[in-house]
Structures are given as C-alpha cells and as structure tokens.
C-alpha cells in the first residue's frame, strides 16, 4: 500500500465516530447514509463521505435502490478483517545512489545561508537558510546530524574545484551507511541554491 493511501485510510479510522460507525456496519445488514447519520447524530454529508471512502477502499459494498422513484445508495460491510501494510523502503529510492554519489558539488557563490560550527568539533552543527525577500523574508534553521555536519564541513568552497559526493564522504571519513541522509541534505541545499552541481 502506498503511503498516501495509508494516510487516507488512517485518517478515516482516526475519526471520533469511526468505531461507532463500524459497529453499525457490522450490526446492520445494510444501511443508508441518512440512516447512519441519524443513528450516530452526524451530518448526513459526513456519513456519506465516510461511507464513500470505505467504498473506495473496498471495505464496504454499495448498491443503488429506488424508493418512490428516488434512487439512493445502501451500504453493506464487505470485509470483517483488513490490514494496513506500510512499506517504508518505498520512500527511500536505492536504485540510483551510485550515480548520485558521482555527482560533483560545491558551495554556491553568495549562498544566502549561515553555517554554524559545532563547538569543540570539526563539523557544521546547523544551517540557517533565508527564504523569500524583503518583509516576507523568513529564516529556516536546519539542525544537522553528525555525518551531515561533517559532510558540509568538507564541502568545497565556492572558488574551489568541484568534488564528487563520494570524494567528500571519503575526505570527511563518513560511513557508507549514512549516504541516504547525506544525499537528502545535498538535494535540499541544492533546492535552496546553497549547493551547486557541476554540469
């Protein structure tokens, strides 16, 4: 299940009335949105949206019925058990890491950021980035992990020749297991125009 789908279903389950609603669904053979709303003292739109979302996730079944020529939907529970399967590895694309490590980088000239050096250690502890201009200018402070701090400590200066990310990792003596977090900060700082890549 992808993360957005998990978020949607979790949001559904976290509603204050969710347990009562499911109790209703397993108790009744079938139920309409207006019946559920009146039973649980909810707005009919709330009950309708909840049932529609359950239908989208294939938890309830819906069918149309006609009463005095006016059609409406009735819902019946389809699954008495369902599980949420979250695969976090999908959030971390491992496939092109080797390629990314060969990218050459350095600090961008006139980068609008303040690098704070850690006391007693050879690393950058945090970086303050300025976003926007004039009155809307805001600062955003990013606290760095030790490996990120070491990486930025050894990042080439704006007038220095570019170095590949792999070379900087070696220079800073950073363990390979921290590569993902390094790439994360590199990509973030590239987006904020603090790090530039060689063409």
């Amino acid at each position, binding site marked *: 299940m992808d993360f957005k789908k998990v978020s949607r279903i979790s949001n559904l389950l976290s509603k204050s009335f969710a347990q009562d609603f499911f109790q209703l669904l397993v108790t009744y053979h079938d139920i309409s949105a207006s019946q559920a709303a009146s039973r649980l003292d909810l707005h009919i739109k709330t009950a309708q949206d909840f049932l529609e979302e359950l239908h989208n996730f294939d938890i309830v079944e819906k069918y149309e019925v006609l009463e005095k020529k006016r059609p409406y939907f009735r819902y019946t529970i389809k699954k008495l058990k369902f599980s949420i399967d979250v695969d976090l590895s999908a959030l971390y694309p491992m496939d092109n890491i080797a390629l990314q490590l060969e990218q050459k980088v350095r600090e961008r000239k006139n980068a609008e950021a303040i*690098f704070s*050096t850690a006391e007693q250690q050879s690393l950058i502890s945090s970086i303050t980035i300025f976003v926007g201009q004039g009155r809307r200018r805001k600062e955003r402070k990013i606290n760095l992990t030790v490996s990120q701090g070491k990486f930025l*400590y050894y990042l080439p200066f704006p007038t220095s020749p570019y170095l590949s990310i792999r070379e900087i990792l070696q220079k800073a003596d950073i363990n390979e297991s921290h590569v993902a977090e390094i790439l994360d900060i590199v990509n973030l700082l590239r987006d904020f125009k603090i790090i530039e890549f060689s063409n």
Partner: protein
Amino acid sequence: MEDAKKIKRTNWIVQIALPIIILSVIFLLLRSMLDNMTFRFILACIMILAGLMHILFLAKTRNKIYLIPTGFYTFAALTFVFATKNHPAITILLVVCTATLFVFLMYTLIKRKIKWRYREVLELAARYVADTGNGFTQRPYPVAHVTYSRDDITRFARFILKYGIAYPYYEKERVVFVIPQNMLLHLLKIRQNYLKETHIIFNSHGEVAVTITKNDYQKYQDELSFDQLCAALGSLFIDFLEKYLNDQGKEIIEKMNALKFVV
C-alpha cells in the same frame, strides 16, 4: 622593509591624526577648565590606569618588554602628583626617570617590539594568493593534518601571544588562535566569543582549520580567491609552528617586522 601589497592601506587621518586631535582638544579643554592640582591628579589617574593595563599585558603575554610602558606610566603618574617647586630633587629625579623610560618606550614602538600583528598576519597570508574571485563563505576551511603534541601547541600559543600575533583560546580538544582587530578586547576579557573573528583551529587530532570573517576579507584590496586565502592563512600558521618548534621563532618576528606597518 616592505609596504602593504595586498591589504588596504591605513587611513592615517582616521587612525592617527584624528585621535591625536581629539585627545589634544580634550587635554586643552581640561587644562583651561580645571585648576592645576585637579588637572594633574586626573592626568596621574589616566597614567595609573594605563600602567595597570600594561601590568595586565605583562601578566598575560609574559613579555618583559611591557615593563617599559608600565614603568613609564608609573613614573609619569608619580611626576604629575609629586613634582613640585617645593621638592626640586624629587622633581628632577622623577622627570629624568620618566624621560628615560619615554625614550625606551619610543624605541620599543619604533622597533615594533610592542605591536599587535593583526594587519601583518592578514598581509602575509595574502602574499601566497595569486588568484582572484570572490567566493566568500563563513564556513571553516580544513587546511591540513599536522603532527604536534598538546605541549607543542601550548608552548607555541604562549609564543604567539607574547609577540601579539594572535590571541589563543585553550579548549579541551583544541587551541584556537584568534586574529582580532582589537586584541585589547580579548586581553581584558571584554570579548570572549571568537566565532565572529578570523581564527585558526589546531585540534587534538592534528587537523588545522581556518575561518576568515567577511569584515577581514573586505580589508584586502582585491577579492582574493577565498579558498586559497584560507589555505594560505592556515599554511602560514603551520609554518610558524614548525619554525617555532625548530627554535626559529625569531624568524617569525623578523618576517613581521620586515613589513612597513605602523598601525
């Protein structure tokens, strides 16, 4: 002697002439407003303060040359208080001592034996840099790995402070050499945060790193290649350390004195 090649020249009007004019005006105003005894008492207090300050320099730097200004200010204070027409012998003795010490003081100043070396350090570092191109960043620049013991670096730090080259801060894992524009603030502990000043770090693993502030970078005539400048400043201090450990400390001072910097 050599003149400044890389660093901007001193503004003589602001640095020398203006303070002299202001002090002279204050002096003349006080002279005209106060009676003779009060005026002499105020001057004596100023001299005592200056003398105390030099005792502090003497204690901090362990440079015996500070005995000369300390002696001069002390005798000058005594002269202002005790030199009267009623005691000609004491007056002559005090005036002779003060004048002699003044001559010695002028000699030490002309020979640059008492001097904070802020501009000399910046100039010497820049002489290794040929390329230009602004690439300023306030990040520290890792220069090199050097082998030294804690004792070596501590002795070197004492030497550096003794000759006013930098102000050292001793930390658990490193020694930080600050190149302050105003050494007085650090000596008097008015400023203890070195992060906003140019500094060189020698840590316990032998790593040397340099940070140059924007203010100091703007003191150069050209926009020197920033990474090269940082590397040069680090190399300069590594060279100083090697020279000092090889008992060639005098060469460092001669190198500084060869520059024709008065302020």
